[in-house]
């Protein structure tokens, strides 16, 4: 009865134990890393390391493992790319303590999650909204949906992909609105916008 193509318990583990922390991870990366443009790449690389690590041995505490991995990744990059001052590298050790502080459990209620999803859906363009609706909710095929909307299938697929990527950010608590809220809440811890504390 598996409807997802995801096979194997590792993929399922990754979805349920790691991806659920994406919002917290993104806040952490944004806060610590000086260049906001790198954050998506860092996230991706942390995910890859976590997945490959878990393939060898499943960690007991997935969340700690994720944050520790992200921290080590940033340390590696700081050293390799020499993008930070000596003062800042000394501060690297402070990254150790952040896991629980920076990511208190703040599971959204089902209603809030649904609202986030609905808001993200509303922010899509008209045609992308229609495409998502027809394909995902009404269950039309690509061809049927393309005919219904009078657009080529290739165009429809591009719209669908764009919408899906936007919704993914909403699903994982990563939308700009939530980022803003998360940032405001944590800005009193001595760092802001990724700049080191004095």
């Amino acid at each position: 009865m598996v409807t997802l193509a995801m096979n194997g318990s590792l993929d399922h583990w990754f979805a349920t134990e790691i991806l659920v922390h994406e919002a917290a991870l993104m806040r952490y990366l944004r806060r610590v890393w000086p260049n906001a443009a790198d954050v998506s790449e860092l996230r991706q690389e942390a995910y890859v390391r976590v997945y490959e690590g878990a393939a060898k041995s499943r960690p007991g505490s997935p969340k700690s493992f994720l944050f520790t991995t992200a921290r080590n990744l940033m340390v590696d990059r700081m050293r390799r790319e020499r993008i930070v001052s000596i003062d800042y590298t000394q501060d690297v050790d402070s990254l150790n303590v952040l896991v629980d502080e920076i990511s208190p459990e703040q599971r959204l209620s089902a209603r809030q999650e649904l609202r986030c999803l609905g808001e993200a859906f509303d922010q899509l363009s008209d045609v992308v909204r229609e495409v998502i609706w027809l394909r995902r909710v009404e269950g039309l095929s690509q061809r049927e949906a393309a005919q219904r909307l009078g657009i080529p299938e290739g165009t429809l697929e591009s719209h669908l992909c764009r919408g899906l990527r936007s919704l993914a950010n909403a699903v994982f608590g990563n939308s700009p609105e939530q980022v803003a809220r998360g940032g405001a809440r944590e800005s009193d811890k001595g760092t802001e916008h990724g700049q080191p504390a004095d």
Partner: protein
Amino acid sequence: MDSQPIEEIAARWVARRYDDAWTDADQVRLEEWLQAATAHRISYIRLETAWSEAARLQALGAGVPAGVAPPRRSWSTTHAMQEVSAGEQDDTAVRRRFGPWLSAAAVLVMAVAGSVLFLAVDRSRGDRYSTPVGGLETVSLGDGSQVTLNTDTRIRVSLRESERHVDLERGEAFFIVAKDRSRPFVVKVGNKSVIAVGTQFSVRRQSNDVQVVVTEGRVNLAPSEGDASHVPTSLDAGAIARTLNAEVLVSEHSASEAVQLLTWRSGFVSFHDTPLAEAVAEFNRYNIHKIVIADASIAGVRIGGNFRSNNADAFLWLLQRGFPIAVEREKERTLLKRR
């Protein structure tokens, strides 16, 4: 490593993976792509999970006509999912509690291939039709009437000169009855009969009790055969009747509301403020792989929304994400526990 192009490709895989045109050869190519780099797999898992989650939009669009996306901001007024603690269930809503167990749905992915309709050769006792768990089938009868069989349903049809006769041996069926005043259309459920001339209605059997939803015309429900003290109950369009032994409980709805309760015909289960225990029982009607509530304290969590009945996985995934519920998959069954 640049994740943007990878994510773009992963999105295209997801779009195609969930399209009708998907082939075994595509599956092989997808597996190859996933194997090629962990970064591919990560992006794919993430977007596929989002795709799964996006099914929740369905719950937000309740009541919206099919074919177009609902207008923006229509979410804010929708109550889609709500949690109420177990102790707060009340009995005031007898009527609304009809909803979930009426509006069953059908077609589990694994059952599609196996949803064979059996037509027995023993004509003397009538034609027999049945569906397996997860099945959903519509058959045309010799008189022009149509029957839609829900999951795990068995009927026997005999078209006699004086009467068109259907035995509902188990399960649930929806009837569109061709008009023929000379031959009433009788659905027998145990010792109860539902009698129609030309109309549309569904009948669900639970043990010897019956629940009838009328969407067009009028039917008579005879609760107890051969008992002179029980006159037939007349049910008009919009009526929902449920028997308990010889008693009949009828609630009146608009015809369009009654139709909403028959979403199983298009493969949906619908819940409105439904206790988890009832929602799980509904999904289990369509599944061989059963869901079991292993902790009584979560049985009363209230669920709302429409779910494609071939997507129990999505239902479980949403439970896990939206509620303090842990999902434990075992080989034979899936356990729900408080987290």
